[in-house]
């Protein structure tokens, strides 16, 4: 070790002038069928990332969730021309792959390919969109697998607490149920899947994003040729508005013998398109949205209660919500919740310091640039923005909005949305052990 007295204090270097984000080369077109196509050149590696977002919300909580889930797992199970195995082999030939995911908001087909294979990837995508057959045998196999995977998921504390929280927040709204019960999935038959495909797998209201080493304008023509014949009927699916959060007693879900408690607090949030969103985003960052936040510095770095506490904002088509999470040792369940409520109360009633605001502002601006510096990152961001009607223009202007936010605006956004009195709290843990201490903080309702 070097002797400590010999080390002169060194100064942390200042930042240099930032380099501007290069203007991306982009082309956009809405096809006659209603499909919006966005193609962006980003050529670090000879690949193309593909995302197709299709609006998919049902009318009521849980209604279509089992069929949607089976549809997502069997869209690639066979077409008029190829079996599931043949389709997978055709994709591999171009170094490609496709996967499908569904939630109560949307169906997303994600994929990528070596860039020479883009034309073929689009042909295969068109094939599944227009001629997926949902063969009975494959549907039977996949629904059993899916049911087993859901059973595994529901043995994970993170999934269990999310299931309880969504029900508590959304009531009868379709967002209340994200994952179907295994028994519901096992009852899904091919005809129901085909019917849902015919009703909802439509170009109207859908967005296709392609990012890679492509010529954006030529890519639009390639897409128009490949997908121009996809279902030129139907209109975009709409999601009903979400109900406002209603505060109430803490909901305690029992997991006997659990060595940790999963704490979740839901709070209101602003959508990205709202004029006050930038101020709200910064308020959430200062509170618990990144490592150098009050919440992490308090309950992790000072008290050691938890490994990864955080506060994030979920944006869905019909509304946004703030979710505060911490998994803590059972014996510190109530003290950890007390600290979360304390930090929420502090951000909602006292303005942050100028230093806290600057740090959060630079973090928000910088990480936005980082998040879109890879093909997959940019494709994912554009797809997420498209879900609420936003595009590259929002991405270009958001740093400017962040740069202008004042302390007063952050304080107002925090007071309006992060007050602990407006929160909905759900705790999953060993109820017999934690109910008493949690009761000291407020009313507790056991599920």
């Amino acid at each position, binding site marked *: *070790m070097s002797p400590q007295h010999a080390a002169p204090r060194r100064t942390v270097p200042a930042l240099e*002038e*930032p380099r501007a984000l290069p203007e991306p080369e982009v082309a956009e077109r809405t096809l006659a069928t209603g499909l919006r196509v966005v193609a962006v050149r980003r050529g670090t590696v*000879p690949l193309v990332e593909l995302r197709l977002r299709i609006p998919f919300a049902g009318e009521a909580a849980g209604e279509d969730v089992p069929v949607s889930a089976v549809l997502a797992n069997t869209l690639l199970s066979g077409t008029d021309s190829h079996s599931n195995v043949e389709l997978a082999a055709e994709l*591999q030939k171009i170094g490609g792959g496709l996967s499908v995911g569904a939630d109560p908001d949307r169906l997303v087909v994600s994929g990528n390919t070596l860039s020479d294979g883009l034309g073929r990837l689009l042909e295969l995508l068109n094939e599944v969109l227009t001629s997926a057959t949902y063969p009975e045998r494959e549907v039977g196999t996949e629904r*059993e697998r899916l049911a087993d995977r859901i059973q*595994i998921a529901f043995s994970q504390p993170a999934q269990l607490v999310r299931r309880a929280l969504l029900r508590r927040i959304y009531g009868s709204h379709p967002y209340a149920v994200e994952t179907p019960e295994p028994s519901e999935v096992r009852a899904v038959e091919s005809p129901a899947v085909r019917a849902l495909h015919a009703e909802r797998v439509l170009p109207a209201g859908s967005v296709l994003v392609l990012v890679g080493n492509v010529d954006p304008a030529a890519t639009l023509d390639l897409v128009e040729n490949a997908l121009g014949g996809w279902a030129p009927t139907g209109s975009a699916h709409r999601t009903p508005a979400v109900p406002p959060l209603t505060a109430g007693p803490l909901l305690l879900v029992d997991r006997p013998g659990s060595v940790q408690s999963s704490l979740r607090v839901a709070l209101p949030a602003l959508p990205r398109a709202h004029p006050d969103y930038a101020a709200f985003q910064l308020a959430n960052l200062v509170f618990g949205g990144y490592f150098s936040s009050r919440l992490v510095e308090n309950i992790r770095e000072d008290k050691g209660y938890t490994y990864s506490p955080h506060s994030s904002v979920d944006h869905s088509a019909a509304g946004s919500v703030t979710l505060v999470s911490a998994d803590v040792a059972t014996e510190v369940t109530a003290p950890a919740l007390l600290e979360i409520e304390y930090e929420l109360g502090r951000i909602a009633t006292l303005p942050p310091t100028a230093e806290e605001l600057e740090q959060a502002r630079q973090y928000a601006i910088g990480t936005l640039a*980082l998040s879109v510096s890879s093909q997959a990152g940019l494709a994912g961001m554009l797809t997420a923005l498209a879900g609420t009607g936003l595009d590259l223009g929002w991405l270009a202007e958001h740093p400017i909005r962040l740069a202008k936010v004042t302390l007063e605006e952050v304080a107002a956004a925090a007071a309006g949305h992060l007050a602990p009195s407006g929160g909905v709290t759900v705790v999953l843990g060993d109820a017999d052990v934690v109910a008493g201490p949690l009761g000291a903080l407020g009313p507790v309702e056991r599920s």
Partner: protein
Amino acid sequence: MSAPTSAGAPVTIPATGFPVERFTLPNGLRVVLTPDRSAPVIAVGVVYDVGIRSEPQGRTGFAHLFEHLMFQGSENLEKLAHFRYVQASGGVFNGSTHLDYTDYYETLPSNALERALFLEADRMRRPELTSENLANQIAVVKEEIRVNVKNRPYGGFPWLLLPPVMFDTFANAHDGYGSFADLESATVEDAQSFFSTYYAPGNAVLAVGGDLDVAGATALIERHFGDVAARPVPVRPSFAEPDLTSERRAVHHDAMAPLPAVAMAWRVPDPVENLTAYLPYVVLAEVLTDGDASRLQERLVLNDAIATSVSGYLGFMGDPFDVRDPTALLLQAHFPPTVQSDTVITAIDQEIERLAGSGLAPGELSRVQARLAAHFLREADAVLGRTLTIAVLEQQRGRAELINDLPHLLAEVTAEQVVAAAQTLRPARRAVLELVPGSAQ
């Protein structure tokens, strides 16, 4: 199989040309740079040549605990300052502990390059190792282990649970997350000694990728790292163990798991000293398990419906090109409770025998190689992935340029080599771990 007319021949495997510049400072620190000015972001990574396998007996989990301590303040930075400086620069940070190395990294807007270099040099010079920080981070690490292992079904399956079945020596077999007893008995002196031994500049590689000018970055690196005092570099011991000569089986009861699972592993050639012999196993794992057209997916999941998922990969942490010998090819499957584990194991054996005996189907190898290339390129697209990859390739092999060569080297693997690799996956050479749901009776 009737291919539509528009389906052409397999695509050619493209080449990347990521530049690599390297130099070594007088204190022994090796540096690799990979400039890419297409986006105003940079990644800075420091990789130390010490990992889980180098932990002393009685100090399981120490390499990872020490990784946490490297974030708790340093010569000129108070606790929390590292996080705040990175994030106030618009950047993100992390560190991770592996079998053979520990990495620390930041991704930031490129105007923060000098700041990031300062932060890494400051903790390379002297981390703030205090009893208060140690106690706090022991508590944090215990919560990390609870959330990732103890409070979760399939926690540590198979990466913590299979090595003790396959290996006999402490280095290879022990739990890298550590026992709570070992973690709680760690002292500041242990930390000082670990730092002094393993965190010498000559035992590290610094990699910087992204929006940088080579001459400018070189000058900044010399300015900030040049006066980190040189220390002796430890000689890495051999962790070699003999191959298995008879099958080993173990059973793990997981009270939280709803479905049974099985994992198995076979030793593979030395990834560093014998890359040519190793690469066919990387291809083989993909032939067996990547996608619906792979051998085991088609047989176990789609046709026989005796497994809900199958996966296969190289290295206990899924790290084909950042691990040294000894390492393994792993296969794992989750299956319904109505299926016996031996049914799953037998089906896997039959598929391996079929491959070993009858070889690959026409076109099977080239499509798997095309997909492998795409997977590899995708990892290299993000500046952080690229930067950490060249750092580890340089540290373990002195060959950062392999980042450009690996897709082609994988594409040159022949069908005969894949078949020969499959012929080595015999039951007598493997370790098997069965995971049984519910508590032990």
